[in-house]
């Protein structure tokens, strides 16, 4: 138990995570993504309410609430899949491009700590965008048709999606020498991942549980062999 506590504390005291979050908070991209997300959700809810929700009987409201909720979750999922490769795809490639990767690799940090710090920073960034959308999801919940469990599970699934996309994007980034190439490769990997996952015999979509860990291990190996 104490070993797990030490390990999990180590994850969140990772210097890469602290630096990445500081840099992300100063970048305009985060504000743009959150603003775009809230605008998209507001427009979606307005359209759904006007086209489906207006004039429905009180007992049919739960159907409208469920439709609005799952539509919002779908949009947030789409935003995650579209935005995470753009930021995570340049994480290692950007360090390489700015000639800062050698500085990290000659520090006391292990390649594993560098990769995990980058992945965690990306996931924490997505968690903030999910939290920003919580008031909108709360409106859908208030309309009805959605259980608290459904809300919690959807938040967990969205976070896991972010974890999967971040880890494969960072794997792509370890193979690239420039940020633009890293981003292109990250989108390719993000598109290919569900196709490959669905083709894996026996486990199929369950492979989503394993993919991030495999991607992190492969990124670590790649970083050790290619500077």
């Amino acid at each position, binding site marked *: 138990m104490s070993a797990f506590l030490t390990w999990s504390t180590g994850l969140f005291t990772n*210097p890469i995570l602290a630096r990445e979050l500081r*840099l992300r908070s100063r970048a305009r991209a985060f504000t743009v993504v959150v603003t775009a997300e809230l605008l998209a959700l507001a427009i979606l809810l307005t359209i759904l309410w006007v086209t489906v929700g207006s004039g429905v009987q009180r007992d049919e409201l739960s159907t409208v609430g469920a439709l609005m909720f799952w539509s919002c979750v779908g949009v947030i999922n789409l935003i995650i899949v579209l935005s995470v490769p753009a930021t995570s795809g340049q994480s290692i490639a950007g360090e390489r491009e*700015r*000639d*800062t990767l*050698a*500085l990290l690799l*000659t*520090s*006391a940090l292990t390649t594993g700590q560098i990769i995990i710090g980058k992945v965690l920073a990306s996931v924490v960034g997505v968690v903030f965008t999910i939290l920003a959308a919580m008031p909108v999801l709360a409106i859908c919940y208030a309309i009805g048709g959605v259980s608290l469990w459904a809300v919690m599970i959807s938040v967990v699934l969205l976070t896991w999606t972010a974890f999967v996309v971040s880890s494969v994007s960072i794997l792509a980034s370890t193979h690239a020498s420039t940020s633009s190439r890293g981003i292109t490769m990250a989108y390719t990997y993000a598109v290919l991942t569900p196709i490959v996952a669905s083709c894996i015999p026996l486990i199929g979509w369950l492979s989503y549980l394993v993919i991030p860990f495999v991607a992190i291990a492969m990124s670590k190996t790649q970083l050790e062999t290619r500077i």
Partner: protein
Amino acid sequence: MSDTTQTAMLPTTPFIAPQGFPTMNLGPALPPDPTMAVRIRSLTKRYGNVMALAGLDLDIPKGSLFGIIGPNGAGKTTMLSVIATLLLPSSGYVEVMGVNPVSHPRDVRKLMGYMPDVMGVNERLTVDEYLRFFAHAYRRPKSTWDTTIEGLLELVNLADKREALVDSLSRGMKQRLSLARALVHEPELLILDEPASGLDPQARVELRMLLHELQRMGKTIIISSHILAELEEMCSHVAIITNGRLAVTGATSDLGKSANGTRIKIRLADGRESETTVTSLEAQRALLHDLIVVQQLPVVEFRPVTEGLEEMFMDAIANAPGPMYATPFAPPS
């Protein structure tokens, strides 16, 4: 008398690892030598068919300011990258402060600070945040960060820029910040790859003074540069590398003295001139005694002929064998 050695150009063909051969240290561990900071034996590094390092041997004494000189593509950066644990050699043996960087890279990283030829500090962080990040990355105790950073910024004369964004600093300031970063974990060895490139004359003078100050503090400093005059003036030892091999190494004060001894120029009052090589100071005295007392010649000049670093560098390039390829008769495409 002289510890300068003019090495024979690759007397034997070094072991060349086949393509795809796992990288490892093939040489045996050397007997311990506490006076040496870095010891390199038969080091090779190949990129495809090209041998960037082709059997390099080098000793870098502790406490020295050691200059590495060589033309572009000589293998300087490759050698420094191997010492800095960034590259694995194809074969050979390397030891940094008694530690093998191939088998114990993390131990070596604690002992050395590395400043690459490109600055790599363009981030939206303040100077203070930048140094704090590296203090954290080097696992320095948090309680020491403030005093360490304050001391380093005083040392590199950036104390008034502590809250400035790194991006806003001039090139010379960024170079000094990069040096402060390399010192954040108080390493014994500093590896500086072309630290003066792109700096204006004033920044170069400041950097030179800073390096002398660090040497006085007991650090071993390895510095690669193209500016020969600066290295000659600044470094206590130098090594010239050409085509991945060592051409010349030794103390700067002994430069120009051949392996066989010191070249002496003799001029007589009637204008006749001659040059001869003597092996020791005693031999010099004996020669002078012989000329003046025994032969009673009118000697008006009797002085050692010293060759500058620039002349030695040009000689080394002129005498260097061609680049080595892993596969004979197969130059890179």
